[in-house]
């Protein structure tokens, strides 16, 4: 299976409890899939890193209890791999994580700040990052990785 053989979009879905322990299994799943799709090692490393950052956020900042759960959707076709991570939010009043706030997060980031690098990394290492408020009152983070000759090996 290489991405060239897949013309239609394929969709895979996962639901896991909001616990950091499940991030490593999710990473190895997506790492294996990315390898089969023909992504090169460096790109696979980046994909696994972003999965960690985005899922950690969904668990730590977007889940009320471990039972809240997070939903992952993987989609790919011949041009790209897209990963959506959905949480149900912490039921805080009004979701602050709008585009404006994301800029704020990036601007606040200095090399010696201890936190606030996750979204920055996701933005830097993916080809597209979108953060949206979802109907469940939580956050959807969507990252896209395009297949490109220089990225494949």
């Amino acid at each position, binding site marked *: 299976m290489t991405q060239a053989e897949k013309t239609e979009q394929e969709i895979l879905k996962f639901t896991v409890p909001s616990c*950091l322990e499940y*991030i490593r299994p999710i990473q190895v799943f997506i790492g294996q899939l990315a390898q089969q799709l023909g992504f090169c090692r*460096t790109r696979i*490393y980046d994909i696994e890193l972003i999965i960690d950052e985005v*899922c*950690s956020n969904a*668990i730590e900042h977007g889940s009320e209890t471990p039972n809240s759960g997070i939903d992952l959707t993987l989609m790919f076709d011949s041009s790209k791999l897209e990963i959506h991570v959905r949480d149900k939010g912490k039921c805080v009043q009004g979701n602050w994580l709008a585009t404006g706030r994301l800029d704020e997060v990036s601007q606040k980031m200095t*090399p010696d700040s*201890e936190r606030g690098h996750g979204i920055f990394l996701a933005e830097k290492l993916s080809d597209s990052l979108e953060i949206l408020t979802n109907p469940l009152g939580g956050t959807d983070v969507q990252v896209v990785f395009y297949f490109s000759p220089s990225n494949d090996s």
Partner: protein
Amino acid sequence: MANESMTIRDNADAKIVDVNEDLGSYAAADLRKAIDRLINEASQQIVVNLSQVQHINSTAIGAMVGAAKRLRQNNGDLKVYGLADNLKRTFDLVGASSVLEIYNSESSALAAF
């Protein structure tokens, strides 16, 4: 995820933390705790051996940056060594390479205190 994932060695005044597993969010919390314990026990010189680590995330890097800053307030420091290329790239991206002292070997990290 047992705790043999991190072992502590002594070398003169320094403590060396050998990290034996990938530093994702789950393990990053362990690293933070291990370093905090050393600082609470009055260690001032900490070296983190990352040569067995294939993946790291921003929380783990943040834990080390934070610890280095606290140690420096008392003339101590936290240094790291053994970074594979992908790890080094992540340190560079988040700016940690300009904050943390990064060495190629344990001996050079220790010699630099």
